[in-house]
């Protein structure tokens, strides 16, 4: 069981959701986040002057999948989220000890 954390461009969210639904990954947690990597910040304009915004808006997806679907899930995200330009985001994969569905007390893969 793995936790996949994908940080992507906000407008890619809808496409990623559809791509994941197509491979039957149907459950995720989405957060609007700010941050920077190589892309750094950017400048904005206000009353005739420029100012720097260090953190860019991104969307963070957290998806838990059984071990055997990790590769498929990552491929699906990569395929859709890639624009080839700096700022496309990152994917982190974390091992997960356990998962529990609160309603039924199910554990492990069954709870995902």
């Amino acid at each position, binding site marked *: 069981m793995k936790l996949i954390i994908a940080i992507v*461009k906000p*407008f890619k969210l*809808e496409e990623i959701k559809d791509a994941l639904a197509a491979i039957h990954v149907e459950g995720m947690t989405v957060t609007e986040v*700010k941050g920077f990597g190589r892309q750094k*910040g950017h*400048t*904005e*304009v*206000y009353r005739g002057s*420029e*100012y*720097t*915004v*260090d*953190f860019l*808006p991104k969307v963070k997806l957290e998806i838990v999948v059984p071990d055997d679907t990790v590769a498929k899930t990552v491929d699906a995200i990569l395929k859709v989220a890639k624009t080839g330009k700096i700022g496309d985001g990152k994917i982190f994969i974390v091992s997960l000890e356990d998962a529990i569905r609160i309603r039924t007390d199910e554990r492990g893969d069954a709870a995902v």
Partner: protein
Amino acid sequence: MNKFFEKMRDPRQRRVFYAIFGGKMLGLALCFALIFGVSAYLSSRAQAQTPAPATAPATAPAATPAAAPAAPTITAPTAAATATGNTTAAAAAAPAAAPATPPNPPYVNPINTMWVLVTAFLVFFMQAGFMFLEAGFARERETVNVLLEGIVDTCLCGILFYAWGFAWMFGHGNGYIGWGDGAGHTWYCLQNLPDTYESTGVATLAFFLFQFAFADTCSTITSGAMLGRTGFWGDLWYSIGVSGFLYPIFGHWAWGPDGWLNAIPFWKAAPFHDFAGSTVVHTIGGMIALAGAIVLGPRLGRKFKRDGGGPMPYHNMTIASVGAVILWFGWYGFNPGSTLSAMDTAGIARVAANTTLAACSGGLAALLFVYPRFKKWDCGATVNGLLAGLVAITCPCYWVSPLGAILLGAVAGVIVILATDLLEYLRIDDPCGAWPVHGACGIWGTLSLGLFATGEFGAPTPTGADNSAGAVVKGLFYGGGTDQLVAQFIGNAAIGIGVFAVAMVLMYAVKATGTLRVSKQIEEEGLDLHEHGGTAYPDTKTSSH
């Protein structure tokens, strides 16, 4: 300096220098030409203006203008007589002889002028309502774009309406376009204006301000259907087309002093009536909006109902609904102000009451009509429903009874929902519902006069109401036959179809310049960041200052 001469030895550098220098000189010459040319033009006009008010009696001798420049220097009584100029030359020669009859045009009527000014301010405030409504219905990432469009449309429209819009729309000319007073003086740049507009008793500039506010709403309506994907240059170009050309010219057909719809030549010379602009403002605005939405195409990622999608979500219902109520408030200037007369008190009261009732029934009808679909009380639909009622009552508000207003408003509330469904079916993306509200209900409102006019009311005059038998308007439901209905249909169809055709050409022309729609990347990341360099709701916690 040495560096400069060194550079000049290189022939290529020299050519560049000559080109830049020549360009600068050309620009400078152009500036001087403008400064002197325009001031010479204006001063010559101003001199001609003093002695010859536009509707001066035909007896005013042609020689008077030539004498005018001398007027300020001659003795006081004579100067006064010349300045009042709309009396005859005889009065100028014998200052003691006061004019026995009131001069023509009539005196500026203070209360009518004040009424028109107050309502002009109210109509102007509708701009705030439009900005709220459109910003609320837009997505967060294009909010600044929507707000700036509202502001820039206003600024642009004011200048264009000053330069030629007012002359084209409200000047005398022919049935299709106006330009001046009909006696050889043009009204461009508000020159040569009479003291009062026609026989209204309203100071001409007050009337200008009132009509500018109307023109402004027309161009803002258009932007509602085009938001989220229109580049700002494209917005500027089509706004110039709308406020500078489409609105004044097509508006003249119905509202110009000699517009051809005042007496439709091929339909019993019957007059087309549009009290406050269901056709002139709303159908024109709505039709241009439709043309814009068609030429632009839907926003990226917009899926339509029959493709398994639905409208893109709004981002702030609070400001959208408050915007609609501000518009409702502004409508108390839009409709009651169109009497152009504060003396027609019964008329104003009736218009204001009808306006209110149509909005009420429009809102309720839309609310109840949509409820069965999802068993939800839909705020967005109700907002558009009340606006639909207001748009529909705009044309017939003076001539219908309160009951008529309620009925036609309710029909508008249903029409706006059906029209929205129609656009969805046709895969046309209209983010705010500009065409369903202003186009479809503008058409309905114009036609409804031919159905609901009671036959009791005629026209407002500067001193009261003219409800004489010759002036009254009677609709089909009150035994007036179909004459008025057909006249309404002809007027609305002529303006609606005409403006739609020209607007399609305009939009395709702007599209050909490549400025109408932004690139895919800009649209995905948001117009605010790319076109305006910042968002409406910047996150102050994570910016460095």
